[in-house]
C-alpha cells in the first residue's frame, strides 16, 4: 500500500450524492489488487454494495463479491446492529445466538429496543464489528484481512459516528459498554486507521469536506485522503476557456470551423454552442476554485474521472485501476 503504509482500516465518508459507496468499492478493489484480501463493510442498511456489485442483498455473512486484478479478493458485509449485538454476546459472554438468553433477548424486543433508544449504543455495536474485523487473526497470527474498507455514514454524521466514546460517556461511566467503546476508539485513533473524504468539485461538497476535516481533527481522528469524484477533463484550451467565460469566444472562428466540418452554421447554432462553451468554462473555473480550497488541506488527493454512464462493475474496475495508477495501492 504505497500511499498509506500501515493503514488497515480505510473509512470512506462524503456528502450525500458524491458517490462514497462507489469510491469505497473502487478503493477495496484497488487495495485487493495483487493478491490482497479486503473486506468492504456497509453500516447503513442500504444494501448499496450489493447494488453496485450486482449481487443479491448481502446476508449477515462475509461474502466474496469480486476478484481483483492480480488475484486478490474483495469480501463484503452489511453490518446489522442486531446481528452485531448477538455476535458480541457470543464473543464476550459465550452466549450462543441460538441459546435461551439470546433467544429471550430477541423475543423481548430487547435488541431492537437497545439499538433504537440509545443511538450511541447502535454506533458502538456497528463500529465494534468494524474493529473486530480489523483485528481478527488467523491461526498463524496474521490478520484475516489485509485491509478493511468501511462505507461510512455521510460527512454530516461521520465525526459523531466514529467518536463513540464521547457518545457513550453520557450514558455510562463504567462497565462493559464503556470498555468496549474505548477499545474501538483506540483502533480508530491509531495509525492503522485513515478517514477518507469523497467530494465533487462543487461548492457545497467542497465546503462540507473542509468542515468535516476540521471536525475530525478536533476529535483526534486521523484524516486520510481526499477523493475528488466525477472529474471532467476540460476540453477547451486555456485561452478559449477564459474567452468563453467572459462571453468573448471567437464565434467567427467557431463558425468557420463548423463549416469546415461540413455543418451548416446558422447564427443561432453558433450562439447556442458558444453558450454551452460559456457554461463549461464557468464550471471549469468553479472547479479550479474547489481544487484550490482542497489543496489547502494538504492531504493526499486522488481524482476519479466522471464515468459516462451510471457506475457498473466495469466502471468500478476502471476506477480501481485509476486509483492504483495514482499510487494508492
Amino acid at each position, binding site marked *: 500500500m504505497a500511499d498509506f503504509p500501515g493503514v488497515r482500516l480505510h473509512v470512506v465518508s462524503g*456528502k*450525500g*450524492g*458524491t458517490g462514497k459507496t462507489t469510491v469505497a468499492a473502487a478503493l477495496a478493489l484497488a487495495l485487493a489488487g495483487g493478491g490482497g484480501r479486503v473486506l468492504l463493510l456497509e453500516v447503513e442498511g442500504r444494501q448499496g454494495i450489493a447494488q453496485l456489485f450486482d449481487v443479491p442483498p448481502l446476508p449477515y455473512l462475509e461474502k466474496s463479491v469480486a476478484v481483483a486484478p492480480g488475484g486478490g479478493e474483495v469480501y463484503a458485509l452489511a453490518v446489522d446492529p442486531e446481528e452485531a449485538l448477538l455476535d458480541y*454476546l457470543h464473543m464476550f*459472554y459465550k452466549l450462543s445466538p441460538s441459546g*435461551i*438468553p439470546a433467544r*429471550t*433477548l430477541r423475543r*423481548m*424486543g*430487547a435488541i431492537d*429496543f*437497545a439499538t*433504537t*433508544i*440509545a*443511538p*450511541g449504543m*447502535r454506533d458502538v455495536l456497528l463500529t465494534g464489528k468494524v474493529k473486530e474485523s480489523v483485528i481478527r487473526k488467523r491461526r498463524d497470527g496474521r490478520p484475516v484481512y489485509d485491509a478493511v474498507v468501511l462505507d461510512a455514514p*455521510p460527512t*454530516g454524521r461521520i465525526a*459523531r459516528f466514529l467518536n463513540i466514546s464521547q457518545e457513550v460517556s*453520557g*450514558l*455510562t*461511566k*463504567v*462497565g*462493559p*459498554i464503556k470498555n468496549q467503546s474505548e477499545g474501538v476508539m483506540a483502533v480508530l485513533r491509531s495509525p492503522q486507521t485513515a478517514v477518507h473524504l469523497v467530494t465533487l468539485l462543487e*461548492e*457545497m461538497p467542497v*465546503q462540507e469536506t473542509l468542515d468535516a476535516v476540521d471536525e475530525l481533527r478536533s476529535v483526534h481522528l486521523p484524516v486520510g485522503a481526499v477523493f475528488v469524484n466525477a472529474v471532467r477533463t476540460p*476540453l*477547451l*484550451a486555456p485561452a*478559449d476557456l477564459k474567452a468563453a467565460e467572459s462571453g468573448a469566444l*471567437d464565434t467567427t*472562428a*467557431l463558425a*468557420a*470551423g*463548423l463549416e*469546415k*466540418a*461540413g*455543418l451548416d452554421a446558422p447564427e*443561432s*447554432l453558433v450562439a*447556442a*454552442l458558444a453558450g*454551452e*462553451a460559456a*457554461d463549461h468554462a*464557468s*464550471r471549469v473555473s*468553479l472547479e479550479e476554485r474547489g481544487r484550490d480550497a482542497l489543496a489547502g488541506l494538504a492531504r493526499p488527493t486522488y481524482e476519479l474521472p466522471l464515468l459516462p454512464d*451510471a457506475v457498473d462493475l466495469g466502471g468500478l474496475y476502471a476506477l480501481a485501476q485509476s486509483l492504483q495508477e495514482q499510487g494508492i495501492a
Partner: protein
Amino acid sequence: MTGMTKTPVLDIDRTLLGSRILVCCGSGGVGKTTTAAALALRGAELGRRTVVLTIDPARRLAQSMGLTELDNTPRPVEGLTGGGALDAMMLDMKRTFDQLVVDHAEPGKADAILANPFYQALSSSFAGTQEYMAMEKLSQLVSTGAYDLVVVDTPPTRSALDFLDAPQRLTTFLDGRMVRILLAPAKAGGKVYLRAVTAGLNVFTNVLTRIIGADVLVDLSQFVASLETMFGGFRERAQATYDLLKAPGTAFVVVAAPERDALREAAYFVERLAAERMPLAGLVVNRVHRSAAASLTAERSLAAAEALDERADSPLASAVLRLHADRVALATREARLQERFSRAHPGVPVVEVAAQPGDVHDLAGLRSVGDDLAGGRQAAVPAVPA
C-alpha cells in the same frame, strides 16, 4: 421533452397559492433545501405570508436570504418584491424536544427528564427524532396562525417519511414488553428489581445487568417511567400532525436529480405517500441539462469533431463540438431516466429546473430558481419607484 408528452406539468404557482403546508422530501444532494427556500420565496412574492423551515441548510443558503445564521426562531427575510412576507428558520431539534417535554410533563417532572442521560441522547441523536421534531415544529408554526403558507424541508434520508409512522411507533413502543419490564422496578419503588418475574425474565435481566451495568439500568428505567407520563400527550400530538398532513391544504413535493439513484429514491417517496394517501403535488427534477442546439445530435457533432481533428484543423470548433456531444448525450440519458420514472408513475406532475454552474448566492439566484420551478414565469413585477 420527447416521448414524455403525456406527463402532466407541475403547476407550482397553483400549488403555492392553494396550499397552507408544503412539504419537500427527497434524498441527499439533490438541492432539496434550496428548492424549499426558492418555493417559499416565490410563495411570498406571490403575496402570501410565508415561513420556510429548513433542517440543515448550508451557511451559504442562509446568506442567500440575507441572514447570517438561521436558528429556531423565524427571522424576516428582507428585499422581497410583491405584497407577501417571508420568514426563515432552522430546526433546532433539541430545543423543540425540550419544549415539548416542558409542555407535557407532569408538574415538577420536567427537570428530571431533561437531566436524564437517556433523554439527552434521545433528544440529540435518536434516529427519527429529527423527522418527528420537524413535524412538531410544523404544527406549531401552523397553529400560530401567523402564516398563510408553511414550507418545510425534511431530512435527507429515507427515514424522512418516518414521521408518518410516529403515532404508530409511539404506540408500539409504549405497549412493548421492554418498556413494561423497565417500568416494573420504577413502579415497585426502585427497591426490588423484578422480584416477581418469571425464570425467563430472570435470565434476561441478569444478562442485561451484566452487559449494560446496574446503574445504566436504573437510569434507563427512570427515563422510561418519566416518559410514560408524557406519552399520552405525545401520541395525541403525533396523531394531530398526521391528520394535518392528510388534510386539504397540504401538498408534498418530491425533489430529485435526473440520476438513477435519486430517481429511485423519488419513486420510493412517491409510492410511500400514495400508500399513506398523502397529497402529492408532484416531482421537481433539479439540475437538468438541456441543450439549445439539440437538433445537432451527439453522433453528428462527434463525427464532425473527429473530421476536424484528422485534418488538425479548427481546434476551437472541434473542442466545442465535443463539448456539445457530451452535453446532448447527458441530456438524452437524463431524459431517458425521467421517462422511466414517469412511465412507472404516470399522472405524477413533473417540473424541471435547469442545472446551473454554481450554487445560489443571493435572493436573485433563489428567485431565478423559483422562476424555473414555475416554468419560466416571473412571480411578481418589481415595484416601480414613484
